[in-house]
Structure formats: structure tokens, C-alpha cells
């Protein structure tokens, strides 16, 4: 039997874990490090750098180094490394392939099946891009699993009593909160909420701006906006942030940050933890609002939560712990392997899916509502473009739902079914997933023709929409997110896979110095 793996593809760090006798464990690299920094770079001679080696060159060569690519997943952003541009899924695929090689080297066998995690609040397009990244890296993606759900799977509750757990997951770039009920080996997600653009990266940038302000106050000179200087400042900010989780004060030193004529100007300033907390407090307040919204969706109050679990590197910040504790006054708040827990849970789920050496049952929900644009009668007359929800957010998946709609005009010949994902009452304000048309409707007065719209949402997030005219039976179907309508064709996928694979073949085995260790 070949090994299966679970992968936490993070904004700042990534983790790969596997199972042995039903127990998950994280696979370290050659130096014993569990975390792969989510950095991809090229040397000036075109050699691929992944992980620590790419991270080390970031401040010196930001134009040849990509970080935090997870934030761009599902967008048409491209990164340029030397002479080629890469889509976000390709950069992610490089990270995944590097993890795959690490696992194959340690386990000494081929690794092809994987569960990859994403933030619970990721949209359809972001999930699809992640799945494509897995395929480009040469994996068969068993499931795209929600991160807080994966974390919850790691918590064994050895009693048949139901325990209600709130998972607060604040990572490098994304935030999720999930409310999970654990009864023995059944893990049920009741509600998820989050923010796809909130995490440690934002705290770094706040601090980066603050350090630039301080530099200006000291020297009366602006920090230049060029990429290299800003990259140094950003790394200094990140280091200061990490130091302030341990200590109440830290000194930020970036000698020779700016040169003015003959003189070099240094950044040297003392930061108090309180200064940093004041910078990020407004951002963290949003996470407390998300807790309330998740509780509301689960029809619960803070008192119903038996315990809260903090996951993700940013939960090391003491202020995060304090805010969550104050917000849930009677709930014990604990932290457990904040960096590794998601990867371990992904490995468990991979075990379940590949042939059950693990007795765990998982019930998850979809975090966003799905529906179509419809005309609504209002006191001010008919209003088009109203979002009519068919699958409400936090529905258990897989699920199938139908709604019946009526024609809006006399002798209406066709209806356009436009599918959206989101929570805004105006359809156009939500994320469009696709559209199709049903033609040849019988010529009847408005409201006399019925069209049934059926949504089928499966475990991998593939949505199939079928619309049927109830009289004559005119029918049309749209499959959102399958191989046919996905963002990349199978031809593109194959090309990407070959291109990424060849990057790895170049340096492999040619030399053994430290910087190549991650890329092998």
C-alpha cells in the first residue's frame, strides 16, 4: 500500500504529514525542520529555490522571490521569476512538489494521494486553484479539506459526551472560526466564518509602515519605496513581531537601510509590545465579530462552547489569546501545536478516504451561500438582479436543493440562470460562478411557466446546476468547477506539470550544498 499524505499549504509555512498505524506524524526535512517556508525563488543563474533557501534570498532579491502566494490563489495574478511568468497555482505546485519529494525521500516510496487543506472561508475559485496546484504537482487530490475542520480532527474526545469546540485559526494570511461538535469519533462542523485576507502578513505590513514612520521621524528622510529596501523593512517587521510575542520590548536594527550621499542611515528603534498591539488591535476586533456571526449561524451563544482551541502561527501573539479569552469569558482557551495541527488532521482525513485505517466520521459545511439572480416583486415594482439563495451558507455538504421560479414577462421565451456565491442580497455583488440559458419556453402569460432550478453540491465543492421547464421539460445543465469548465484545461494542466517538473530536474543531484536541500 502506498502512503497517503495530508498537506497544510500555508501562507507563510507549509507542512506535510502522513499516517502510521492510524497515528499522524509530520515529515521533517533533512535538517529536521517540520515547516517548509512558503517561499519560491530563482537564483540569478536560474536555479530553483524552495523554502528556507528562497526565504533567505528574499530581502536581497525580492524580484526573484515569491512569498505569500496563497493570497493570490483564484486570481489572475502572475509572478515573474527570471524569464517566465507563473500562475498562483504553479507557484503553489512548486511548494507542493517540494513537500512531495521530502515525503518520498523519508518514506522511501512514491506518494501520490493527498488531502490538501484550505481556509474554511475560501471561495469556489480559491479551492479550485488549490486543487489544480495539487494536480500540477503530480498529486491525486483526495479532498480539499477546511483547515479548522482538519485541526478539530486531531482532538480525540474519548467519551461519548458531546463536546462543543470553537476553533480559532489565525494564520499568516487568512482567518477562520469554526464551531465544531465532537461526539466520540464523529466530528460535525456546525458553522464557519472568516476572512480570507487577514493574518500575520497584515500585522507585518502595519509594523513595516510604523517602522518607516519612525525612520522618518529620526532622520527626516523617507524610506525609499524600492522593492529591496521595502523587503528588508518587511523582514525586520516580521522579526520584531515574533520577538514581541516572547518579550515585552525589542530593538529593531537595520543598519545601512538608506544611504544619503556619502552617509549611511540606520534604522534603530525600540518597540514595546503595547505599540505593536495598538497597531493590530483594530484588525483583531474583526475576528471577534466573526466569532459572534459563527455562533449565531450555529444558533448558539458563547456559553454553549465547552472550549476554544487556538490554531495558526499568529495565535502566538499574546493579545490574540487575551482578546479571545475576554470574548468567551467562561470558556477555557487552549493552544495545541499551532503550526502542525492542521497538517496532522489532513493526514488523518487522508487515511479515512484512502481505506479506513482510521475510524473518524466528518461532517462539514459550505461557508458561503449559493444561489441565482432572480426578479423580485417589490412595492416599487419588479426588481431584477436580486440574489435568491438556494443553498444557504453553513449547509451540510454534500447537499441537493431545488427552488421553483416563474417567468417574469408575458410570452417570455428564455430564462438566463446566473449562478452566484456570496451573502449580498444583490446578485451582482456576489462572486459569479457561471451562467446558462434555457430557450424555447412555451408562449404563456407572466408567471405561468415554472422553471425548477436544482443545485447539487458535492464533497469536493463541485456544483452542478440543472434547470428544468416543468411543462415541456426543456432542460439545461451547468457543471461549475469540473475539469471541463475549470480555470485550466487538461492540456494546460499537463503543460504546467511538465514545466514545474523540469524546474526540479535541473538542480537535483548536481550539487549538495545547503541551499539546495529544500529543492531536492
Amino acid at each position, binding site marked *: 500500500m502506498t502512503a497517503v499524505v495530508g498537506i497544510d499549504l500555508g501562507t507563510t509555512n507549509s507542512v506535510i504529514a502522513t499516517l502510521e498505524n492510524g497515528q499522524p506524524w509530520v515529515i521533517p526535512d533533512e535538517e529536521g525542520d517540520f515547516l517548509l517556508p512558503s517561499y519560491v525563488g530563482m537564483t540569478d543563474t536560474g536555479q530553483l529555490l524552495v523554502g528556507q533557501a528562497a526565504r533567505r534570498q528574499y530581502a536581497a532579491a525580492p524580484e526573484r522571490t515569491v512569498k505569500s502566494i496563497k493570497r493570490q490563489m483564484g486570481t489572475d495574478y502572475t509572478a515573474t521569476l527570471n524569464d517566465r511568468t507563473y500562475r498562483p497555482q504553479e507557484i503553489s505546485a512548486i511548494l507542493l512538489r517540494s513537500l512531495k519529494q521530502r515525503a518520498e525521500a523519508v518514506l522511501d516510496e512514491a506518494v501520490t494521494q493527498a488531502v490538501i487543506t484550505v481556509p474554511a472561508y475560501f471561495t469556489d475559485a480559491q479551492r479550485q486553484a488549490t486543487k489544480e496546484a495539487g494536480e500540477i504537482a503530480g498529486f491525486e487530490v483526495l*479532498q480539499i479539506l477546511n483547515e479548522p475542520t482538519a485541526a478539530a480532527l486531531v482532538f480525540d474526545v474519548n467519551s461519548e459526551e458531546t463536546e462543543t469546540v470553537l476553533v480559532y485559526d489565525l494564520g499568516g494570511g487568512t482567518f477562520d472560526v469554526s464551531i465544531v461538535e465532537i461526539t466520540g469519533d464523529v466530528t460535525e462542523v456546525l458553522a464557519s466564518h472568516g476572512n480570507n485576507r487577514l493574518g500575520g502578513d497584515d500585522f507585518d505590513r502595519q509594523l513595516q509602515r510604523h517602522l518607516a514612520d519612525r525612520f522618518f521621524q529620526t532622520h527626516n528622510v523617507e524610506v525609499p519605496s524600492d522593492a529591496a529596501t521595502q523587503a528588508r523593512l518587511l523582514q525586520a517587521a516580521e522579526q520584531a513581531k515574533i520577538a514581541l510575542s516572547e518579550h515585552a520590548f525589542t530593538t529593531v536594527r537595520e543598519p545601512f537601510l538608506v544611504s544619503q550621499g556619502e552617509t549611511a542611515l540606520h534604522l534603530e528603534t525600540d518597540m514595546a509590545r503595547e505599540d505593536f498591539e495598538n497597531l493590530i488591535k483594530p484588525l483583531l476586533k474583526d475576528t471577534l465579530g466573526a466569532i459572534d456571526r459563527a455562533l449565531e449561524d450555529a444558533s448558539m451563544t458563547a456559553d454553549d462552547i465547552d472550549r476554544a482551541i487556538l490554531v495558526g502561527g499568529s495565535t502566538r501573539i499574546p493579545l490574540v489569546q487575551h482578546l479571545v479569552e475576554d470574548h468567551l469569558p467562561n470558556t477555557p482557551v487552549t493552544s495545541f501545536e499551532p503550526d502542525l495541527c492542521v497538517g496532522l488532521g489532513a493526514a488523518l482525513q487522508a487515511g479515512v478516504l484512502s481505506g479506513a485505517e482510521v475510524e473518524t*466520521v466528518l461532517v462539514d459545511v459550505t461557508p458561503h451561500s449559493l444561489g441565482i439572480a432572480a426578479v423580485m416583486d417589490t412595492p*416599487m415594482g419588479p*426588481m431584477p438582479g436580486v440574489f435568491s439563495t438556494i443553498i444557504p451558507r453553513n449547509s451540510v455538504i*454534500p447537499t441537493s436543493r431545488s427552488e421553483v421560479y416563474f417567468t417574469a414577462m408575458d410570452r417570455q421565451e428564455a430564462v438566463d440562470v446566473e449562478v452566484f456565491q456570496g451573502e449580498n442580497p*444583490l446578485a451582482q455583488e456576489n462572486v459569479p460562478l457561471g451562467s446558462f440559458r434555457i430557450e424555447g419556453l412555451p408562449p404563456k402569460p407572466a408567471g405561468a411557466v415554472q422553471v425548477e432550478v436544482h443545485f447539487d453540491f458535492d464533497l469536493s465543492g463541485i456544483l452542478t446546476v440543472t434547470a428544468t421547464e416543468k411543462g415541456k421539460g426543456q432542460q439545461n445543465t451547468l457543471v461549475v468547477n469540473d475539469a471541463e469548465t475549470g480555470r485550466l484545461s487538461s492540456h494546460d494542466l499537463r503543460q504546467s506539470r511538465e514545466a514545474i517538473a523540469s524546474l526540479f530536474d535541473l538542480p537535483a543531484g548536481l550539487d549538495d550544498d545547503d541551499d539546495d536541500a529544500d529543492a531536492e
Partner: protein
Amino acid sequence: MSDSHDLLGLAPGATPAEIKSAYHRKLKEFPAHSHPQEFKAIRAAYDTLRKSPQGLDDFFAPKPITADLDKALVTQLEQRVRGSVDVTLEDLILLTF
């Protein structure tokens, strides 16, 4: 006995705790990843039983009508209408005379 009771292997009048543990038993038998159709039916049955715990007792009791008015939608509608009849007092005076 309802279909939902049938599907979960429950007798009428099952307590919420019994309903939940029957649901969990069925989940283990028919996990979502390998038995999606069965899973959906089990989940639908569970939702039905969970949401009508009082059963037939007060079936004939009058039930209040509830209507949810989406405040966000009303506000946006209002803004649209205001936007489309954006007439200043000055314009109005000029038009009238």
C-alpha cells in the same frame, strides 16, 4: 411512523438524544465520501426530526406567521430608488414654475 423515523431506525417519540445517536450510527455506516446519496437522505431525515421535536401534540395549535425582512436589502433598495429620483429642491422649483 414517519419516513424520517424509518430511515434512522427509530420508533416514534424518540428523544433528541436517541435521534442524534441514531444519526451518528448511520453516518458511520454511510459516510459522505463513499455514500453521498444515502448521506443526503440521512441528513435530511435528521434535520426533519431535529427541527420538529414537539411532534404531533400541538399540530393544531395556531402558529404565528413569521416574516423576515432583510434590512440590508431594504436599505439598498431605498438607495437605488433615491438614486433614480435624485432631484434637488432647486430643480423641483424650476420645474414647477
